[in-house]
C-alpha cells in the first residue's frame, strides 16, 4: 500500500504537473515573489486556503470508495467548480485531473472508482487524486495530504526554476511548512468525513484569497509564459 501511495506522491508521476507553477510565475513576472521568504509566505497562505479545499475534496473522493461505482461524481465535481471562482483555475484543475486520470487508469485498470471517473469529461484534479489514493490502498487522510503536498511542491519547484532559488533552502522552507500542512490536512480530512457522512457537499470549505485568482486570470491572458498556469 505505502509504495503505491508514494508513487502518487512523486512529482515525477506523469500527470502534467511540471508544466504548472501554481500561480508562482505570474507573481514572479510582476516582481511580487522574488526570494525564498516571499515563496514561504505565499505557500503559507495557499496551504491554509486552497490547501484546505483541495485536501477536503481529495479526502471526499477517497472516502467515497465504498459507494463506487454508484457514487455521484458529478455532484462533488460541481461543488468544487463553484468553489473555484477563477475560470482559468477551473480549467487548470480539470486539465491536470484529466492528465492524472490517464496515468492512474492505466496503473489500476480494474479499480471501479477510477473507472467511474471515465464518465466525467474533464474531472477536477483533487477528485482524481483522492480516487487514485483509494485505488492505491491509501486512506482519506493520505489523499488530503497528497493534495496539499502537490500544491506546495509544484509551486516550490517552479520557483526554483524561474528564480534560480537555492533548491536546498526551498526544501528547508517546505519542511518548515510541513507542520502547518499536517494541521490543514487533518482539518480537511475531518471536514470531508462529515460531509460524506451527512451526504452534504455544502459542508466542504471554500477558503480562498483574491490574489491567486486574479493572477491566474492574468496569466491565462498572457502571451509569453513558461508555465501553463
Amino acid at each position, binding site marked *: 500500500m505505502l509504495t503505491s501511495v508514494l508513487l502518487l506522491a512523486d512529482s515525477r508521476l*506523469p500527470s*502534467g*504537473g*511540471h*508544466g504548472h*507553477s501554481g500561480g508562482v510565475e505570474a507573481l514572479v513576472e510582476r516582481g511580487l515573489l522574488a526570494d525564498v521568504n516571499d515563496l514561504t509566505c505565499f505557500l503559507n497562505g495557499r496551504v491554509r486556503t486552497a490547501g484546505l479545499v483541495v485536501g477536503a475534496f481529495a479526502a471526499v473522493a477517497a472516502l467515497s470508495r465504498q459507494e463506487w461505482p454508484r457514487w455521484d461524481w458529478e455532484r462533488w465535481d460541481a461543488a468544487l467548480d463553484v468553489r473555484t471562482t477563477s475560470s482559468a483555475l477551473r480549467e487548470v484543475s480539470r486539465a491536470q485531473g484529466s492528465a492524472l486520470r*490517464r*496515468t492512474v487508469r492505466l496503473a489500476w485498470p480494474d479499480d471501479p472508482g477510477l473507472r467511474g471517473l471515465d464518465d466525467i469529461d474533464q474531472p477536477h484534479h483533487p477528485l482524481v487524486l483522492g480516487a487514485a489514493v483509494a485505488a492505491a490502498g491509501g486512506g482519506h487522510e493520505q489523499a488530503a495530504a497528497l493534495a496539499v503536498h502537490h500544491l506546495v511542491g509544484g509551486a516550490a519547484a517552479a520557483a526554483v526554476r524561474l528564480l534560480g532559488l537555492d533548491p536546498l533552502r526551498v526544501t528547508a522552507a517546505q519542511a518548515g511548512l510541513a507542520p502547518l500542512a499536517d494541521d490543514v490536512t487533518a482539518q480537511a480530512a475531518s471536514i470531508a468525513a462529515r460531509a460524506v457522512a451527512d451526504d452534504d457537499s455544502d459542508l466542504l470549505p471554500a477558503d480562498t484569497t483574491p490574489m491567486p485568482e486574479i493572477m491566474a486570470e492574468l496569466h491565462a491572458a498572457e502571451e509569453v509564459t*513558461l508555465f*501553463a498556469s
Partner: protein
Amino acid sequence: MHRDDLGAEPRGTALAVAGRRDRRNLRIGIGGPVGGGKTALVAALCAQLRDELSVVVVTNDIYTEEDAEFLRRHAVLPDDRIRAVRTGCCPHTAIRDDITANLAAVEELITAHDPDLVLVESGGDNLTATFSYGLVDVQIFVVDVAGGDKVPRKGGPGVSRSDLLVINKTDLAPLVGADLAVMRADAERVRAGRPTVFTSLREAPQVPDVVRWVRAQLATWRPVQAM
C-alpha cells in the same frame, strides 16, 4: 530491405505498436537542439503534404508560442490545426518523462480533425532529449552543421537512436568549416544502419529525402491499422 533504406519499417516500443492498431494517424516527433531547423522542417513538411493528407501540428516551444506563431504566420496550416503546449522550463520532460499534456493536445487535434499525420515538435533542448514512444510512433532528430562536425561523433540518444537523423543547414558548412563527409561517417558509425539525410532547408525547402521517408512511414503504417 537495406537497413539504411529510407523506407524502413516504422520502429517503436511494443506498447506503441500495440496502441497503433486502433488509430489511423501516424505520429512523428521532431526533436533536436535549439535552432537546428525543427520548425523550418515542420513548415516544409506541411507545405509538401497538406494537399494530399490531413496534417496537424503540436509545438512545445520553451518560452512562448513562438513555433506555433511562426507556423501560423507562414500559414502552412490553418490556425486550428496547430496547438502549443507549455512545458514549464522543461521541454524534455514534456516529450519524454511526462507526456500527458502532449497526449491531451494530440487527442484534441485528432478529435477535431481526424488527421492522417500528427507532427509533434519538441522545444529546442540538448542532444539527450528524445521522444517517448508513448507519444510518437517514429521520431526525427534535427541537428545543424553550424554546431560543428563533432555533433554526430558525440552521439547521444537523439543522434544515435532516432528513426531519422536530419543534418540541416548544409549551406553553412563551408562557413563554419564543417566536413560533411566526417559527419556522415560518424553518423553511420553510431546509428547502426538507421537513416541519415543532409538538408538545406534554406536552399532546398522541398526536402525530398525527408518527404520520401515520411511517405514510407505512412505507407507501412496503413496496413498495420487495417489488420
